[in-house]
C-alpha cells in the first residue's frame, strides 16, 4: 500500500501514469457529458412550477458541489503537505485552487441567473448564497497567498495552513450564516428515502455531477502535469520528455 503510494507520488512516475490515464478519462467524460446533456435538456420533464428554466440546475448544482469537493481535495492535499511533505500534494494544491474558485463563481452566477425569475431578485442575502460567496473569498485568499510567496515550497506550505484554517471555518461560517438568514430551498437531492425531485430529473443530475468530477480531474491533471514539468525542469527526464516531443513535431 505505502509502496504503491510512494511510487505514484514521485513526480516522474505520476507524470507517466497520468499520461496513460488521461485518454480513458477523456472518453468516459465525453460519453457521460453527452448523455447528461441529452437527459438534462430533452428527456427530463419540465418542472410543473418553474417550467424549463429549472434546467439550469444541471449546471448550478454540480458546480456548487464541485466548489465544495475541490476545497476538500485542497484540505487533503494540505494535510499531505504538512505531515508528509509530499511534493505532488504541493503541486495539487496550487493546481486545483483556481479551478475551485472558477466553479464557485459559476455556482454563484448561475444561482443568480436562476434566482431572478424564481425569487424575483438577482441577489438575496440568503444563507447559502452568502456562504458560497465567503467560500469564493477563501479560494481567492489561498490563491493570493500562493502568488505572494516566491519560493514554491514555502508558498505551498503557507497556503496549506491557510487552507486548513479555512476547513475548520467553513462549517462555522455555513451554520452561522444559515442561522442568520435563510431563503434558499432546503436540500432536495440528499433526502435519500424520498427525494423531492423526480427520478427523470435526478438521474441526469447525478450523471452530470460525475461528468463535472471527471472534468475537474482531467483539467487538474493537465495543470498538475504542466507544473510537474516546470518544477522538475532541471532534471534529465523532463529534458528527455521535452526533446522527444520536439522531435515528434
Amino acid at each position, binding site marked *: 500500500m505505502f509502496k504503491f503510494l510512494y511510487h505514484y507520488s514521485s513526480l516522474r512516475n505520476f507524470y507517466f501514469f497520468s499520461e496513460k490515464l488521461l485518454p480513458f478519462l477523456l472518453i468516459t467524460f465525453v460519453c457521460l457529458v453527452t448523455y447528461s446533456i441529452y437527459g438534462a435538456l430533452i428527456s427530463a420533464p419540465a418542472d410543473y412550477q418553474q417550467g424549463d428554466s429549472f434546467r439550469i440546475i444541471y449546471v448550478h448544482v454540480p458546480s456548487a458541489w464541485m466548489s465544495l469537493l475541490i476545497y476538500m481535495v485542497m484540505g487533503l492535499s494540505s494535510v499531505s503537505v*504538512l505531515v508528509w511533505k509530499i511534493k505532488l500534494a504541493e503541486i495539487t494544491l496550487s493546481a486545483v485552487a483556481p479551478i475551485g474558485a472558477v466553479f464557485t463563481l459559476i455556482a454563484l452566477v448561475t444561482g443568480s441567473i436562476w434566482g431572478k425569475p424564481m425569487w424575483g431578485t438577482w441577489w438575496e442575502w440568503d444563507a447559502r448564497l452568502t456562504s458560497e460567496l*465567503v467560500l469564493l*473569498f*477563501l479560494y*481567492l*485568499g489561498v490563491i*493570493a*497567498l500562493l502568488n*505572494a*510567496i516566491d519560493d514554491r515550497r*514555502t508558498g505551498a*506550505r*503557507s497556503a496549506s*495552513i*491557510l487552507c*486548513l*484554517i*479555512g476547513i*475548520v*471555518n467553513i462549517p*462555522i*461560517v455555513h451554520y*452561522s*450564516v444559515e*442561522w*442568520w438568514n435563510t431563503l434558499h430551498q432546503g436540500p432536495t437531492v440528499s433526502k435519500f428515502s424520498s427525494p423531492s425531485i423526480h427520478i427523470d430529473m435526478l438521474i441526469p443530475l447525478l450523471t452530470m455531477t460525475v461528468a463535472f468530477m471527471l472534468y475537474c480531474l482531467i483539467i487538474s491533471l493537465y495543470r498538475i502535469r504542466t507544473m510537474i514539468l516546470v518544477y522538475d525542469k532541471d532534471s534529465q527526464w523532463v529534458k528527455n520528455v521535452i526533446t522527444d516531443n520536439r522531435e515528434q513535431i
Partner: protein
Amino acid sequence: MSTDTTTWNTLFILVRRDVLKTWRESADLLYPIMFFVLVTILFPFALSPEILVLKSFAGGLLWIATLLAMSISLENLFKTDYSTGALEVIVLSGVPLLLVGLAKAIANWVLSGLPIIILAIPLALSLGIDAFSLSILLLSLTLGSATISLIGTAIGALSVGLRSSGMLVIVLALPFYIPLLIFGAVATSNSQAGVIPEAELYFLAGLLALAVTLTPWATASAIRTRLS
C-alpha cells in the same frame, strides 16, 4: 510543578516584551485605535445624525470598526521581529512555538483589543446605546476581539515578510471574522430589543474556546514555515 511555572513565566515574558516594545513605538499602538474612532465617527455622516437611526445600527457599526481596526494592527505584529531577526532568535532559543503564538495573540489583544473595547464605551453611548445593551456589546466585543486576535495572529504569521503584507493580511483574515460579526452584532441588536442574548454569547464563547485550542498550532507552524 516547576515546568508549569516556567511555562507561565515564559509566556509572561514574551507577552511583556511585545507589549513594551509596541508601547515604546507609540505609532504602532495609536494608528489602529485612531482608525477605530475615525471609522466609527464616519458612520453618522454617511447614515444620518438622527440618534434613532444610529441607535439601531450602533452594534453593527462598532463591530465593523473593531474588525477593521484589529485587522490593521495585525501587520505590525511580526514585522519588526522579522526584519530585525528577533523572531529567529526567539525560535532558536528553544521556546515552544505554541507559546510564542499564544503570546503574540495575547499581546495583540492587550494592545489593540483592550483599548478598542474601552473606547467603545463613549462611542456607543454617543450612538445612543442604553446601559444594558452597552454591557452586552462590551461582553460580545471582549469575547470576539480575543478570537479576532487569535485568528489574526495565525494569518499574520503566514504573511510575515511578504510584499504588501498589510493588505494581504486584511484580505485573508476578514472572511474568517464573519461568524464573529454575525453573533456579535445580533447579540447587541437583540439586547436593544430587551432580550438577553444568551445563545449568541455562548456561541462567541465557544468560538473563542475553539480558537484558543487550535490557532496557536497554526501560528506555530506558520512561523516555522516562514523562517525555514
